[in-house]
């Protein structure tokens, strides 16, 4: 059953409508990929799901309940987490403090330290550098802290916006392996990615957005069989991948 259901979603900035009718679903336990050209509305879609933008039309339901209008705290309480695209760590805080911030809205009796230990088990390098300021980390380490911070409240559903953006090609596979690792602990993943070919290898299902609407969707291993998608997005993204 679909854990997340987006229907006819319209949203934008002021008068400027970016999403003009997005339909998408995320199946429980899946890694669902959202792809599309720059400006297609992928990040806007994620911001609208997470309540950072108000939709002007349409709905987002999570576990069958309408979540439009929910605050971020309410969404986190419901088991959602959001890893932003750009590097969004708190630069002058340590790795540990950054992780703590991930549990900011947790109840008083929540075992924050225990959860941090779990994150360290998942990404051991973070424990070694526990007291390092986030500003001193490499791109790959920053991404681990981002993931760890998103996992602090034990989410069952995670929005991940372009986890490989700006990373060296040789560590892109590692990032996807981490996403898969997180997914294997039972977290449903809804992920934007520009490295389409590699991204699809790790995904179960994929959506293609174009100009603010869902253009195609299908199982990840068949979506590139569609010649239209291959021509429109893949050729363009092969060179794009190399330049990243």
């Amino acid at each position, binding site marked *: 059953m679909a854990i997340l259901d987006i229907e006819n979603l319209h949203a934008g900035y002021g008068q400027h409508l970016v999403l003009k009718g997005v339909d998408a679903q995320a199946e429980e336990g899946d890694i669902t990929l959202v792809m599309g050209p720059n400006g297609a509305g992928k990040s806007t879609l994620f911001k609208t799901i*997470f309540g*950072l933008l108000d939709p002007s039309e349409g709905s987002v339901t999570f576990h069958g309940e309408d979540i439009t209008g929910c*605050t*971020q*705290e309410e*969404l*986190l309480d419901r088991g959602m987490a*959001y890893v*932003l695209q750009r590097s*969004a*760590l*708190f*630069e*002058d*805080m340590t790795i540990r*403090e950054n992780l*703590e*911030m*991930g549990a*900011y*809205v947790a109840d008083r009796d929540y075992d924050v330290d225990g959860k941090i230990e779990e994150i360290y088990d998942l990404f051991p390098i973070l424990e070694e550098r526990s007291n390092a*300021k986030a*500003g001193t980390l490499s791109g790959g380490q920053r991404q681990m802290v981002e993931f760890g*911070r998103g996992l602090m409240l034990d989410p069952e559903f995670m929005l991940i916006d372009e986890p490989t953006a700006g990373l060296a090609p040789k560590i892109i596979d590692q990032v996807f392996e981490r996403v898969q690792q997180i997914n294997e602990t039972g977290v449903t993943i809804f992920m934007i990615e520009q490295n389409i070919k590699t991204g699809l290898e790790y995904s179960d299902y994929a959506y293609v957005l174009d100009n603010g609407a869902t253009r195609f969707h299908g199982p990840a291993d068949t979506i590139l069989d569609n010649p239209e998608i291959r021509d429109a997005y893949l050729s363009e993204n092969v060179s794009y991948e190399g330049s990243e």
Partner: protein
Amino acid sequence: MVGSLPLQFGWIEYLNLVPQAFFSGLLMGLVYALVAVGLALIWGVADIVNFAYGEYMLIAMYVTLIGANNYGIDPLFMIPVNVVLLFVAGYVTYKLVIKRVMDAPMLSQIFVTFGILLILRFGMLFVMGPDTQSVETFMFDGAVVIAGLNFSLPKIVTGVVSLVTLVVFFLFLNRTKTGKGIRATAQDPEAAQVMGIDPDYMNGLAWGIGSATVGVAGTMVATFFSMQPELTPTTWTLFAFASVALGGFGNILGAVAGGMVISMVEHLGGVLLNPSYKELYIFLVFILVLIYKPEGILNWGEGE
């Protein structure tokens, strides 16, 4: 080198005056630092410049004056009153006014805080009158001699109170969950929001706490500075701006260093050169920093 300057005293007097000015500068530096961190906090978190900052400080000074001169309440007891009063004033200012221009162009934000400045300044001029007034009683009056140096007791008490307030301020920001939430919002508002931290609440808190710091500072400096509705706030706003610019805009730790430097320049410049131009030295340093190191004398990584 000093010999070529217009000396006001002989060499022997200088030997006494320099350490005197140094320690006075240190004491006053603590209160300048306190004034500066409040402005830096508002600037860093809400990303808005409060031009009416000196007016908020003057409110605390006048409340202290009225308490002391009209009701016989010692200024020291006015600290909690002014902390609460200024916190509420800052918080309400954010909720009623600033919140509406958070996404507006910078020019609109400047005009809004300038409007608040005009209302407060001329409101106080109307209520308190244009004359210069001073607090008449303070339980710590007079001067003490420490190691041959003369210190006014009110300034010592002000330095100590400022230091304690700064320590509490930094413990709050670095050790408490809410304090960390404020820092997180300052560093990356969107990322903080994604963690469930309500940016609107944090902005309001920053305005409240930033204003409460001048609640403490205003109470204390009222014990030895006279006040006037037009001159006093202008002076303190400019001191605060110079300190914050020196420390790197919006950088809270830098603001402490900035306040210290400003105070040292003022006090040592006043002794070594000519005391009439004390403020000129401050602005000379300020302008030089803006020209040659606009990111601030300290780069602690957080400033923007």
